[in-house]
């Protein structure tokens, strides 16, 4: 009996020990440090956004109003203002900002659509097909993303000028697709790789053709990845400055390029710059929330025996 109780005690002790090594007990100091670091980080990232957002609804005078030296309560002056849409009015009515938003919208959505449709097809082929030098092809595709965009911008400029794509929306769409396609292909391929092939085989046996298996089973199951790829492609294009400035030229300016135009030789239009920045940021935040929802989905859970 004594021997038995010793036997049962020993493993319990060992198990407790194992647990301690896995779950580190957090000391109060560590907890406080974590909170402080996170707080600093949040202020660091959100403060510029907040100032931009508030300033976009202020007149120039209010935006640049600073409290007198030593007046710490004056910090709250930042929230004391009469909201006005004068900056937005200037932006759209005087500076004519609408086309830039339209260009950015068309170029980013257009290139994201092309990248995702072609990327899904390519990713499925690479993930499911068996052919020679498959690894090399996959690597070549991702290798196109290894160099920074600046490297290709000069040759791309010459090519586009030659074929008349320079300063056009289709040109901008093609330019964005060059880097969106390889990105979306690799992202979506990861999702296809994770899908158990038996599910597709089951559909194949159940009477679906290759194409029906792809559209009715593989694509719906990889949908979170496809949506994520689409959103990220839109964000990257919408956000891009380099291609828009060089390839887009005068006739296909997007929002980031448009913002630089608000810094004229005469003055810097801070108010409209703030408003334009908000217009640039809001769709990105909205898409960011959307992508989070899709990425979290564990759609394949429970479909097959794990």
């Amino acid at each position: 009996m004594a021997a038995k109780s010793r036997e049962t005690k020993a493993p319990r002790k060992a198990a407790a020990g194992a647990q301690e090594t896995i779950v580190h007990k957090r000391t109060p100091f560590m907890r406080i440090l974590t909170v402080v670091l996170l707080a600093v980080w949040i202020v660091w990232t959100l403060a510029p956004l907040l100032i931009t957002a508030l300033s976009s609804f202020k007149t120039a005078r209010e935006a640049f109003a600073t409290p007198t030296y030593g007046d710490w309560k004056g910090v709250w002056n930042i929230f004391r203002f009469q909201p006005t849409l004068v900056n937005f009015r200037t932006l759209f009515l005087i500076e004519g900002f609408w086309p830039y938003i339209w260009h950015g919208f068309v170029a980013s959505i257009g290139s994201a659509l092309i990248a995702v449709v072609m990327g899904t097809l390519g990713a499925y082929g690479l993930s499911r097909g068996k052919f020679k030098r498959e690894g090399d092809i996959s690597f070549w595709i991702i290798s196109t993303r290894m160099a920074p965009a600046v490297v290709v911008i000069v040759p791309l400029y010459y090519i586009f000028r030659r074929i008349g794509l320079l300063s056009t929306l289709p040109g901008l769409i093609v330019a964005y697709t060059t880097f969106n396609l390889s990105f979306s292909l690799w992202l979506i391929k990861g999702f296809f790789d994770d899908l158990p092939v038996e599910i597709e085989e089951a559909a194949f046996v159940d009477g679906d053709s290759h194409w029906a298996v792809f559209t009715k089973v593989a694509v719906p199951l990889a949908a979170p990845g496809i949506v994520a790829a689409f959103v990220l492609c839109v964000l990257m294009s919408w956000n891009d400055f380099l291609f828009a400035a060089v390839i887009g030229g005068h006739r296909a300016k997007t929002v980031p390029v448009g913002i630089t135009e608000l810094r004229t030789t005469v003055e810097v239009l801070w108010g409209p710059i703030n408003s334009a920045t908000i217009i640039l940021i809001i769709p990105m935040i909205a898409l960011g929330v959307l992508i989070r929802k899709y990425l979290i989905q564990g759609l394949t859970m429970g479909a097959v025996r794990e």
Partner: protein
Amino acid sequence: MARVRLEKVWKRYGSVEAVKDLSLECQDREFLCLLGPSGCGKSSTLRMIAGLEFISEGSIYIDDKVVNNVDPYKRDIAMVFESYALYPHKKVFENMAYPLRVQKLPEADIQKRVRRAAEILDIAGLLERWPRQLSGGQKQRVAIGRAIVRDPKVFLLDEPISHLDAKLRTHMRGELKRLHRDLDATMIYVTHDQLEAMTMADRIVVLNLGVLQQVGTPDEVFNHPRNKFVAGFLGDPPMNFIPSQLQKKGKGYKVVHEQFTLELPDSISRKLIARQSSDSVEVELGLRPESFDLSSKQPDGCDMQGKIYVTEPLGEDVIIDITLGNEKIKAKTVIGQAWQIDEPIYMRVKHDRIHLFDKTTGESLLM
């Protein structure tokens, strides 16, 4: 329903030969079991019949029609996968209705067939659930349900119950066998579990390393194994193999081991004479654990004497490990007598249960 025939089928993955020169036939309405250890090519064979793998060489016929280059969706087969492979984005009802929707059957017909299949499988209450909300046994039933809603030529089942717990597995064995009878269907069933094969199959196909070992009814493969592999694979505990010498003795034969001499009955001797066995051959004597009469006192006509190494009671029966010189063998008997470790034990061999295998080729000498 249909017949399935394989003719000299090979499957190669690069330089690996998974299936070698396999020819077999599954009759109409037959329950055929492909049995073998992992890597024996049984799943590759089934996948070739389904059309999910290309055939490297040879032909596969479904109802006298070569289907080598026919896509799975045109073969009219239903398959149950080892991993169940349910559609995670569809509820149970839609999972089962999927093959019918593909055929574009009228909605009323689909409803009727799915509900009937669900009733047969006792999953009528689960139709509105998602696959992720099901237990392993329920998923497996849904997977079977998806196969039986339509009326395919052949059912292919790839280890459908091997991942269930032991109790549920025993239950499902009976259910599947009954289902086969009720559906009156041709079924090809892949398993590595000899018990499943023995209990369910009309005929068993034993495969090893991609090579066909034996085809026969459970009785044939169990009681008349063609070679040492088949003899050792079927039965639990497995057959004992004792390396010994086959010698001529007068008109008959005897098996000589340093610990015993076993005179062979006339029925076996006649087969050996017919084979024109030479006077002295190295053989493996095959004796199933059930083919001994055991006694702790020396009986008349005792064939062998050994020492008890250990006993393994199983409730009803007991397995006794016996040392026989350098050999260790297992014998099974009804529990009751108190067997003491290290005590001598006397064995009488049931003469109609003797198997003899060629030492080098492993082929049975009694076929």
